[in-house]
């Protein structure tokens, strides 16, 4: 039982790190530009498809990974230049509609280019296999590598936000948008940089997860809503909030999904517990969100609206 718990906890942390990568970009885009982007989940999917394509073409995960990065930058820049840039000054309703359109376009385009059959990405040899954790418990090396890579990116982001000029502008922008323009900064360039950074992080998350997940067109959707929950819980504009929110959501989702029914069995008969658990488990993160929001409407680290 303890082993299962540790295993699920690690899975939760691994999912949390991925969610953080996606949510970090999203929360900055929300916080600084006040733009809602429904197409952010699509970028995660695109990242996975890019690495799948490049890895297949070169026969190597690493080459695939290296080629994915500039491609992701390109995708982010094009998206920003063609569509997002025109949406900054528009109403949230317009942003919802246009990015909803982008989701449709991207999903169908991926189907046309890559077909509907799921793709797979080979796991790099160095990271295949498992390492013993405690007793008979083993954990896949690759998942640990994801956690480490995600934490490293998170640390880099933390340094960037807190100790660089761009980061200073980001923090100022998240608190008060007009300050930044008052500082005489080229807002358009700052926005383009932030949006592209967010896009690359989402693609990176998709690329990292590709070897352990089947790459298909539905993968962006499931993660998008979870990311929204993360951003809302953490507080819009807060990278720190996105980090804690991501871990919280992912751990509750993974651990609760498995242990919910087990714990429920303590208080009701097994059949009813199984049924209730199955129904409740997928709702857990939303209930968590509801509870947090009723206490802190602006999220854990959000500025009060």
């Amino acid at each position: 039982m303890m082993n299962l718990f540790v295993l699920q906890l690690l899975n939760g942390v691994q999912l949390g790190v991925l969610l953080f990568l996606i949510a970090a970009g999203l929360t900055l885009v929300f916080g600084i530009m006040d733009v809602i982007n429904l197409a952010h989940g699509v970028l995660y999917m695109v990242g996975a498809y890019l690495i799948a394509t490049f890895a297949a073409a070169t026969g190597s995960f690493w080459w695939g990974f290296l080629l994915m990065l500039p491609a992701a930058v390109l995708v982010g820049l094009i998206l920003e230049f063609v569509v997002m840039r025109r949406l900054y000054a528009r109403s949230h309703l317009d942003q919802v509609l246009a990015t909803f359109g982008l989701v449709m376009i991207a999903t169908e385009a991926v189907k046309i280019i890559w077909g509907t059959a799921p793709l797979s990405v080979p796991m790099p040899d160095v990271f295949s296999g498992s390492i013993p954790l405690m007793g008979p418990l083993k954990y896949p090396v690759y998942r640990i590598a994801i956690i480490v890579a995600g934490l490293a990116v998170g640390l880099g982001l933390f340094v960037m936000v807190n100790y660089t000029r761009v980061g200073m502008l980001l923090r100022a922008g998240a608190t008060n948008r007009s300050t930044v323009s008052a500082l005489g900064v080229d807002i358009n360039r700052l926005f383009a940089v932030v949006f592209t950074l967010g896009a690359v992080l989402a693609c990176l998350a998709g690329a990292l997860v590709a070897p352990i997940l089947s790459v298909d067109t539905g993968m962006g959707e499931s993660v998008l809503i979870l990311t929204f929950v993360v951003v809302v819980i953490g507080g819009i504009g807060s990278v720190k909030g996105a980090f804690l929110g991501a871990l919280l959501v992912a751990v509750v989702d993974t651990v609760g999904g498995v242990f919910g029914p087990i714990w429920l069995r303590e208080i009701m008969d097994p059949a009813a517990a199984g049924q209730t658990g199955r129904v409740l488990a997928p709702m857990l993160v939303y209930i968590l969100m509801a509870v947090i929001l009723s206490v802190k409407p602006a999220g854990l680290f959000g500025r009060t609206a």
Partner: protein
Amino acid sequence: MSDATATLTAPRRALTGRLKAALVLFVLFALMPPLAAALNDPFYVLIGTRILAFAIAAMALDLILGYGAMVSFGHAAYLGFGTYAVAILASWGVNDLVLQILAAIAISAIFALVTGAISLRTKGVYFIMITLAFGQMAFFFFISLSAYGGDDGVALMQRSTVLGMDLLKSDFGLYYTTLAILVALFVLCHRIVGSRFGRVLTGIRENPTRMEAIGYSPFRYQLTAFVISGCITAVAGVMLANQAQFVSPAFMSWHRSGELIVMVVLGGVGTLAGPIAGAVAALLLEEWLGALSEHWKLFFGVFLVLMVLFSPRGITGLLEKAGIARRQE
């Protein structure tokens, strides 16, 4: 004091214009089935019913989106409550439409009251994302409801009865019943918009701080509107279940919520009659593009992006640009 009468004519003129538009729509709807029969293609009547049901939902969403500036991205949940009210009650042997509608309204009212109260403590992007998340919560609830088919959904053995009568058995009966409900609900929404409550709601949309400064607490009015809108959407769900004779979580995916918003914007936000036309336009466009290509969503997406980028005010905006419709100031 003689100005009092003059004062009342200006807004009334705009209102009667919209009433006329709605009337034209309703007459066209009423003429559609005989026309389909003449063309010997009764399938149109079923598609028509689907359009009418979505028109109800789009109009309900417009009540809060257009008049209350609340962009709810979780309204498909209420469609879902409506459809499942039919499926679940039918499985208990309750086939009466009235009871199913009442059940759908009751469950929607509770859900809207709780989630609305939480969502309305926030605004802007937060509100959109939170309503989306709550919609998704309802979606997952029904996916894990294995007694009713879970992910796959469940087929309905028969259509609902109306107070013991087989009114909905024929496609025509179902169509005209749905149309009658649409007209009734339109009148209801129209009255609400023109009422004291409606004026307060619109005032809050225009300037919440000012409304507080003259003694209104926006929250309770917004929440009331949110609940009403959810309940009306649930009625659309009940009719949709009868149309499809099949119920599944697919009715409440977040894409549906997005499509409802598209319908409202396409027809014109804050016009009630507009979103009805928007539902017609969006669903016909879907059918048409779907017949052209299996990748119709690609074209629909391109259409959406272009519409936002080049015609911010929807179809009404396009018509105004072309000088067909008079700009309503």
